[in-house]
């Protein structure tokens, strides 16, 4: 035991030595990744130091897991051991807000809410409303390509990112893209790293195109009589030329939140149109603004992300939404599982929160996957206890691109030190 501690301490001083500005210390229970205490926690204070930590880990064949806000560390297959937990917390600056260009460059460890508070000085924002915005970092959100309800209008991070600097597994720093909104020079590695779950490189900074803050916002809270009406309302809105920024469903019982952001006249008018559409279908509505509106959206996020149990992401085509929900309801009942759903009715992206026996949850996930043809959707487990993750593959089928993904991983991380085995598709 003392021998291991001695070795670890030697490694820590080596990291500190080779990565000037890195603070390395032994891991503690509080640092546990998926229940596993990392041997070393490194919190580099500069991009150079991040690269140096990686270079060291690569030379010594040590595994590295990156931690931003720690909101997604339980994602992916179970972990066996973590040598180095690399925290990006010290890299949290908004490096540049080019408000005249509607772009910003942000360090990976910056927290989404803090970034948006800074950008608000010029009435702009990074139009991402991913869950846990008060804690989640830009690096983590980009690495997971995570987004929230207003994806309906603004798209996920991969649609907003225009440049990136990264530290490679071998400790070399590189960049892709730039600071301009239009750019096709070279391969778009920023998009490749977006959604790569830390398995190809460590994101140091990301540059995004921003959106102007909307002048006004209204949200229609609708109570429907049946889940079948979700798709009707979503399609009805879009067919009437409405331009909602969020078309959210929550279930059970079937409710929707429809958000309109524009100049005041348009937000109010479109909200009223939407309210009429829901009323005509026999539903009940309240139009929310200001503090009530903000509170409704917080409750909506908390329904899934504020509770316990398993969280899974279920993607289907919008036209398959009603049938999928019906099947889900039936399956959950049959397996005695509690199931709550929120999601993007206009896009077919749903988040499920499941509670109940792990074996039953595993059957539900397998059953859903079995019914989704290739290219028409997927079920990915985001957060779950170890038992469920040992019963069922968290990613599900990745398709015939998997061997190529493995080749990409091998080129970027030949020694397999970055988040080993936990990248998408088990990379």
């Amino acid at each position: 035991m003392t021998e291991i501690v001695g070795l670890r301490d030697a490694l820590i001083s080596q990291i500190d030595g080779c990565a000037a500005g890195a603070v390395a210390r032994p891991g503690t229970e509080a640092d546990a990744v998926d229940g596993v205490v990392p041997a070393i926690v490194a919190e580099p204070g500069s991009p150079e130091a991040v690269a140096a930590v990686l270079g060291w880990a690569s030379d010594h064949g040590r595994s590295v897991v990156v931690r931003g806000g720690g909101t997604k560390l339980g994602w992916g297959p179970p972990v066996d051991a973590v040598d180095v937990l690399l925290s990006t917390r010290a890299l949290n600056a908004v490096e540049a807000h080019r408000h005249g260009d509607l772009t910003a460059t942000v360090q990976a460890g910056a927290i989404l809410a803090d970034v948006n508070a800074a950008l608000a000085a010029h009435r702009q924002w990074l139009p991402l409303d991913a869950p846990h915005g008060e804690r989640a970092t830009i690096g983590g959100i980009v690495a997971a390509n995570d987004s929230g309800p207003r994806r309906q209008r603004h798209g996920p991070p991969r649609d907003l990112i225009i440049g990136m600097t990264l530290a490679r597994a071998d400790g070399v720093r590189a960049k892709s893209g730039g600071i301009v909104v239009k750019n096709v020079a070279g391969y778009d590695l920023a998009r490749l790293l977006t959604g790569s779950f830390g398995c190809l490189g460590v994101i140091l900074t990301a540059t995004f195109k921003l959106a102007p803050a909307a002048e006004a916002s209204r949200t229609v809270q609708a109570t429907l009589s049946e889940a079948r009406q979700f798709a009707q309302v979503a399609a009805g809105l879009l067919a009437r030329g409405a331009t909602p920024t969020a078309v959210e469903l929550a279930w059970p019982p079937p409710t929707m939140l429809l958000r309109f952001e524009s100049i005041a006249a348009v937000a109010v008018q479109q909200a009223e149109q939407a309210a009429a559409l829901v009323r005509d279908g026999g539903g009940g509505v309240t139009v929310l603004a200001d503090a009530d509106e903000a509170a409704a959206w917080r409750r909506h996020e908390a329904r899934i992300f504020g509770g316990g149990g398993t969280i899974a992401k279920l993607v289907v085509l919008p036209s398959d939404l009603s049938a999928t929900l019906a099947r889900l309801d039936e399956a959950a009942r049959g397996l005695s599982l509690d199931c709550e759903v929120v999601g993007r009715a206009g896009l077919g992206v749903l988040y499920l929160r499941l509670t109940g026996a792990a074996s039953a949850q595993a059957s539900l996930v397998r059953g859903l996957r079995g019914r989704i043809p290739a290219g028409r959707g997927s079920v990915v487990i985001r957060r779950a206890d170890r038992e469920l993750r040992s019963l069922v593959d968290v990613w599900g089928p990745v398709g015939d691109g998997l061997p190529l993904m493995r080749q990409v991983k091998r080129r970027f991380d030949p020694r397999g030190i970055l988040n080993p085995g936990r990248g998408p598709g088990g990379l």
Partner: protein
Amino acid sequence: MPVDAQFLAELGRIVGPDHLVRDEGELSTYESDGLVSHRSRPRAAVLPETAGQVQAVVRLCRRVGVPFVARGQGTGLSAGALPHPDGVLIVMTRMNRVLDIDIPNQRITVEPGIMNLEVTRRVAPDGYYYAPDPSSQVICSIGGNVAENSGGAHCLKYGFTVHHVVGVEAILPDGEMIHLGGAAVDSPGLDLLGVLVGSEGTLAVVTKVTLRLLRRPESVRTLLAAFDSTDAAGNAVSDVIAAGIIPAAIEMMDRTTIRAAEAAVSPGFPAAEAVLIVELDGPQPEVAARFEQIEAICDRNQGWGVQVARDEAQRGRIWRGRKAAFAAMGRVAPSYYVQDGVIPRSKLPEVLRRIRDLERRSGLTIGNVFHAGDGNLHPLVCYDDAVEGQAELAEEVATEILSYCLDAGGSLTGEHGIGADKACHMPKMFDEADLATMRFLRRAFDPAELCNPDKLLPTPRLCGEVPGPYRAHPVEAAGVAERM
């Protein structure tokens, strides 16, 4: 191993003898893309009709070690589809069917040889359209758009090709067929689709594409305003963006390109130093409110001669003027170079001023007609081949403009791509580590380096060559299409 009789016979068996081109004269059709200064004849060209044939051709090339290059309609402007002299050119134009239209999910699945505009034509009756609108849209293929991540005037608000491709089927350089993405929005796994779009045909041959469709906006309004300097027009653009307005399009033309457009199609533009064309779309009251703001911004920057399109005919006239400008350049200059550099849009006045100075110093006319809202310049350096040394001077001037773009924090190319043309400029924008990291990706896809080699990344073989001047693409010269 080289291309020999047996190899050619095998190619013929795969695509059918009628779709194998070996004749030198016929092959000359394919020796360049829209950038005709780069020319090279392939050993053979094939015109496959199915993904299976593409796969068989790629497999054969891989087995024998013969390089291959995919070609769409050959309208590219960076010599991306330039054939390899020892290789096979895979011409995708026969694969041009619509495979599926799914209006409820706003999707269309097509073969890559289909023309861009044809996609919109097919869904227009349902009130939908395909957003990316390169001005070559009547003559360029979706496969080429996917490879170049093409843009267009309306990409300011709606994004580029990469934002509208949700799935592809492709043949990898080893002959394997893969499917990336799909009809649904997210697929588990690395986003290889996001990096395949814009990879300039160097990673795979795309055989099927699923695209996102958009609903036609409720209302559209178009305005044209004149300015006494490109500075003032550039300031107006910066002010629009700074005011938090994202129009559907903001385009700028300068004195030279206005003159060219007037000579060609007489759109009735004012004889000014610069004009801006601004288009807004969306819900009617929003468009109306933003329109007032834009008029005020033009006013503040001493804009004059404001024309507002009152109907589709007037809107069409304004856009015709804008789109004709490029093709009409021939009326004001015997030859010209075109650049595709990008700058931060807040730096428009500054960079345009540097270009004006350069124009004065060099004695060459430099026109400009471009996507101002995105900061994507298209400077046209005019010269006369008949004047000794002018072609060389023009080339130097064009390269200097690129350096202004990079100085301003911009990019070598906004939509035309790197291709063979700008590969040797890549080290000006990316350092060795950046380029080496890009090579990781290329090697993962194409370890044998057979798929459109010598494009996009600098190679010693390529970078000994000097890029040549721009000449009108035959289709463009014929006035069928215009460049933006």
